[in-house]
């Protein structure tokens, strides 16, 4: 019994963290039409940043500044934001397909850097020596996991409410206009490049927040955590859930993470032993099929974007 609950808490924590990431991507793609093909780099910047800033001193690599945890997390978010700022300045003037390729390249470079630069973040062995906050008070067991889950949930709800208000504001209107037709938006006095950059950075900071929480959850991060797989999964969550709809993004995160976990479990249980080596690949194929199917039959996702109409929040 406690085992099942324990597992569900573990599942829900991971799914909630991923949901935060999907919300970040949704701001970029769903609302603004920016194709971020390197989601994992910004997620990773948050994770590495948080652990390096908040960890205990380690031989041989940067970090161990032992910062007060919330500051470390903010630092991780800032790292993702700065990275987005640089990438954005370099690429956002280029149009969509270039941005996709450039961000994908950034993610590959990021993973390589983390894998090879041992002085920076421990190389392939990853960043260690991070103690989860409040561990002394809460211990390492079930209680801690529940407390951590609740914290993540509160953060997820906060990010959701933040984005809902943002998207309903004139700023959200700007983002959609840029997504729909940049040239028309600029003919109406708007500056596409500034707006794209703002949206790209904001979304990436949210991705960094998710990464920071992820690193905290495992008290560890290594190059294995920043593989293109994660970019692919987060995209699948957004497309299935419904790009442009924040609830869809969260729903998609839980659904796809559930499907991913369940398929992994089913394959390991029922697939012939020879096939089990390929469990990961088969999961990929399955998710790929789901994405393609979605794009063919319901491209707007399970919870499509809602049109902002005049009745809502208008005449009191």
């Amino acid at each position, binding site marked *: 019994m406690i085992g099942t609950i324990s597992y569900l808490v573990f599942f829900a924590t991971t799914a909630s963290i991923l949901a935060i990431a999907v919300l970040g991507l949704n701001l970029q793609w769903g609302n603004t039409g920016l194709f971020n093909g390197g989601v994992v780099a910004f997620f990773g910047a948050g994770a590495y940043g948080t652990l390096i800033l908040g960890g205990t001193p380690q031989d041989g690599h940067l970090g161990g500044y032992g910062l007060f945890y919330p500051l470390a997390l903010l630092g991780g978010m800032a790292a993702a934001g700065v990275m987005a700022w640089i990438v954005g300045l370099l690429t956002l003037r280029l149009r969509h397909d270039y941005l996709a390729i450039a961000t994908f390249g950034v993610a590959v470079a990021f993973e390589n850097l983390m894998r090879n630069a041992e002085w920076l973040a421990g190389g392939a062995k990853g960043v260690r020596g991070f103690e989860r906050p409040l561990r002394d008070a809460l211990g390492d067991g079930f209680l801690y996991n529940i407390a951590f889950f609740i914290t993540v949930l509160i953060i997820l709800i906060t990010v959701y409410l933040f984005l809902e208000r943002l998207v309903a504001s*004139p700023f959200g209107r700007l983002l959609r206009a840029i997504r729909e037709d940049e040239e028309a938006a600029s003919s109406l006095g708007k500056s596409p490049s500034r707006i794209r950059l703002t949206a790209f950075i904001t979304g990436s900071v949210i991705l960094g927040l998710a990464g920071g929480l992820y690193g905290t959850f495992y008290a560890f991060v290594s190059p294995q955590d920043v593989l293109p797989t994660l970019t692919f999964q987060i995209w699948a969550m957004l497309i299935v859930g419904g790009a442009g709809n924040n609830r869809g993004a969260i729903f998609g995160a839980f659904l796809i993470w559930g499907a991913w976990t369940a398929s992994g479990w089913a394959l390991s249980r029922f697939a012939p032993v020879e096939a089990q080596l390929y469990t990961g690949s088969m999961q990929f194929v399955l998710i790929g099929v789901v994405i393609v199917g979605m794009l063919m039959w319901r491209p707007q996702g399970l919870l499509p974007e809602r049109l902002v109409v005049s009745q809502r929040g208008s005449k009191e």
Partner: protein
Amino acid sequence: MAETVLSTHRLSRSFGPFKAVDGVSLEIARGTITGLIGPNGAGKSTFFNLLTGALAPDAGTVTLAGQDITGLPPSRLFELGMGRTFQIPRPFARMSVLENVMLAPTGQVGETVWGPFLSRKQMRDQERQIRDKAMEVLEFVTLGALADHPAGKISGGQMKLLELARVLMGDPALILLDEPAAGVNPVLTETLIGKIEELNRQGTTFVIIEHDMDLVMRHCDPIIALSEGRIVFQGSADEAMTDAGLLDAYLGTPLHA
């Protein structure tokens, strides 16, 4: 001579070896409705794109109300009081008609990431004003009933009206319309022209690209004709009507006054 609101000096733009706009110099007087005519491919839309900063000129200058605006981005020109519509309508398709219009006013406090949180009260008041004005403008162009429709789903003619509505939100002193009547039914065209003349009486200057010669002759004065990127006629509507060369060579259709 009336005050000049917009002028160009030897404005040119090529696409590869092809000179789409070739040394055009002209002046637009404040308070006029200027008709810009010419055969397909004459360079009319390209000329608009040069005026509004959507395209950079290879040579020449554009002056708006005495200020050199050559090379400024379109967003800046809208702020300076020049609005334009497109030959092929460019609605924000997956936004409601009302949202399309509410987007346009500049200087909205809610247009930053922090505005919706730090300046909430101010933003709400502004939103209410902008919404009221947007509804007024939509009623004005007869689109009031479509406010909550997705802009991508209205008819082509209605999109033309929507573009005009968006531009009107900025209260521009000068409005450039690229074939406003194309695809709009005759009744609606009359309405549209009525609206344009109403705004014109209130002081707005218009430059209108239009192929419907009847409409141009009745409502535009002066008239400028472009062909192969150059000005081939410039004068009053009366002069245009009697300019045989203009009619034969560039319009191909005889006119009856």
